[in-house]
């Protein structure tokens, strides 16, 4: 099956949305979740999640805490903050505006 790179600039949106849906997650879970929900269409270069998560930590959109996985391993869990939730709506409306515009351009006769 062919996998597509995610469109540039949407990585934050994907992470924010994923965390909003499922509460706490560690990096591996986030990568898997994005992939699974997109029916394996969206392929994140998994490592690039981590610099993105760091930037989101700096911005204060997420917080990170160490916890234990189901398999009893130490993992860093990320959680959305209020600022992160606000950012999610901003990113969403931006994304919808862009997608809407692209759709209109494509469907125009």
């Amino acid at each position: 099956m062919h996998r597509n790179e995610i469109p540039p600039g949407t990585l934050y949106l994907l992470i924010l949305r994923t965390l909003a849906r499922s509460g706490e997650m560690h990096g591996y879970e986030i990568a898997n979740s994005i992939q699974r929900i997109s029916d394996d269409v969206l392929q994140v270069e998994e490592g690039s999640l981590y610099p993105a998560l760091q930037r989101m930590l700096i911005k204060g959109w997420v917080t990170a805490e160490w916890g234990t996985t189901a398999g009893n391993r130490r993992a860093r869990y990320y959680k959305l903050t209020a600022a992160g939730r606000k950012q999610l709506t901003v990113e969403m409306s931006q994304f919808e505006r862009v997608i809407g515009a692209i759709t209109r351009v494509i469907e125009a006769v």
Partner: protein
Amino acid sequence: MDWLRELARRLSMLMHRRQFDADLEEEVRLHLELRQEEQFESGMTANEARAAARRRFGNATYLKEESRIAWGWEWFENLAQDVRYGARMLRKSPGFTAVTILTLALGIGANTAIFSVINGVLLTPLPYKDPKQLVVIKEHDSLPNVMDIQRQTRAFSQGGGINVEKMDYIGATEPVQVRVGLIDAGFLETLGVQPMLGRIISPGEDVQGGPRFAMVSNHFWQDYLGSDPYAVGNTIQLGGNSYTVIGVMPASFALPAEHADVFVSLMVRDPGAGAERDLHFMHTYWRLKAGVTLAQAQADMAAIDRRLAEQYPAEEKERKSQLVPLQEWLVGDVRSALLVLFGAVGLVLLIACANFASLLMVRAFAGHQELVIRAALGAGRGRLIRKTLTESVLLSVLGGATGLLLAQLGTSVLLAMRPENLARLSGIHMDARVLLFALVVSLLTGIAFGMAPVWISAGPDVAQALKESGRSTTASTMGHTVRQVLVTSELALALVLLVGAGLLIKGFSRLRSVNPGFNSSGVITMYLQLPETRYGEIPKQTQFRRELLTRLDTVPGVQVAMVSDIPLGGNYVGHRLVIDGRPPVAVGGEPLVQTLSVMGDYFHVMQIPLRAGRKFTPLDREGQPLVAIVNEEIVREFFPHKDPIGVRICWAGDVGPPRWMTVIGVMADVKHSGLNQPTDPAVYTPFSQNDERWRRFMTLAIRARDASPGLVAEVKKQIWSLDAQIPVDDVRPMDELIAVSVAQQRFNMLLLGLFAALALILAAVGIYGAMAYAANQRTHEIGIRTALGAQRRDVLRLVMRDGAKIALFGIASGIAGALALTRLMASLLFEVKPTDPATFAGVAILLAFVVLAACYLPARRAMRVDPMVALRYE
């Protein structure tokens, strides 16, 4: 506030960098392991699973780096690394490090010390409300005039005057004299001072017959009122009268120029003097209205002056009030001195920097091969420059920190030897501005002079440099030239400073050799003032004086006399002179002369020689014909072709018929107002023939054969045996009065001398270092020359030739620089031209010797070079 929280997060990451790295590492490892397990379970081999996990993750090292960089501390880590590296390099050569830091510390320390003085005296605003609006009128004025100006002015919002008078205060353990500021109601208000306790006097109370109210200084409150928080309402005994304390000043309050312990209303305390229009004894302060310029105020003042002169021609004919901003008036005398000193320490710093640069260069050449190899291995030019700069800035900041310590030490020394007119110096301390100054100077030094070796060593043609052996590269030839230029400029700068110091020293020695007109050694002075309540009448005063001198005559081994104002004491009373038989002069236009009253054989005690006629005798007393003695300046000015003896003189403006005094003698001139001041025309009269009741003050002049410590106590005992409530003040040897009068000049000379000495040492070290290094570099060449038959004399000539060149160019350009710069210090010099040839020549010769000595040591070492050793050294 979001950015603040973000900054806090970033800072916390910086604090926990190690934890951050470990966390990231663990997180990535977990991710890879989980992915690997998943792949393994889907049927891959262990190796395939690991490779797949890696592939899907991407470049882990790069991504970890990205995560770190996201936090924005990369520059900091690089800097920290450079600093650590630099510090390690410096620790490896402690000698170089110590010499460099010390050199910079001397330069930066001296600059910081002088800057902190300038900061305290010139830059810090005066501690009053809106100090920029405050001006003074240079000329003293009378209270009626002050009140007229207050009524008529359109330029000032407020104004007031003060005259400080000593009064007796009874209530301390022994009778003391306190300084009482006689003021009008506008004075304290003009300065904008809020009392700490109570209030200040109101205009309604500042009238003749008003209540006797006093405002006391914080010192007075502490010393005499026991810091009583309920001191307001207490009464104090001043000059025989009771005053009620209505206010206590805050500790931060000090008068701009005068010193006063207590403030009382002039109109209440002395309505007679307060009402006299021609008694110009108040010093006045004024506050400009908002938006009024000094020029506008000066024009307004001139109009008021004109009106007053028309209205009161007898008293105010010659009015000419000059306005000066308060700050300028206070620092006027010291500004030029401080700026010259600042310029001087600037030169010292330049010399230190030149040494710094040449030390860095020597070091850069030593590490030249290393740099070349690093460049060849691909180190960027920027990275190399940063490494070199980090090292030099590290050195300069360390030097600056050490310099700050030296400056702290230096300012306390400066404070200890400050002259009295630098009183504001006591407020000097290391504030943020001084620290910032030191930091900026250090950084600039490090960057600017750290660049010197960078230019030469970071830009070599790598291939060319690698081919050469490192002994005679183009870089080192170029470095040799640069170093010679550096030491030549050092020499020139040192010469400028030495000439400046030499001129001040010469001026000071001229000043000290000025004949004051009396013999100060062995003379002790003390000031007495008779209380008005008991000595208001002249016969009482005369009786006290005569009795006191009689009693003091019984003290063995001393001669005692008294004068109204002692030379160099800072005071005298001026009167307008009328000479009998001369055509009358317009009222108010008579020449002003100094008038001094004496009793006892004052001229004998002070050893002022008689030039003509006779001295006073005890018979020149009350009831006898009035007599006067003049000084030579009076003869020069008013009797150039005539014998003054027998001429009658009197004072203009005397009430009633003129009191003619016959001139009976001429005394030698005395420098009354300062050794560097012209002699004023002066007239001496006997105290006993005075008709001025207010001359209740006197200074005793006591010449003791051997001044035993008990003498002062013995004299005090005699005074108090006559009247136990007379305070004795200002007990000072005459020598001290002379020393104080030249303290400012002495201060300038010592400081500039110190800086010049510093400059000389730094320059000598610099020249020695450069010559020694150059001679060392030529060991090989000298070895060959010696092997080929050169004599030691030839070797000596070879090495000394460089030195001679430096001496010649350095001294020539230094003289040119000094000629241009010493003009700026003309106002600090006494009877020495800024281009004094003897000083210039002396300094040039001194420096030539220093250079030769600095060259001779390395030259002698070079002469001893063993050709075999030198050649084998290759």
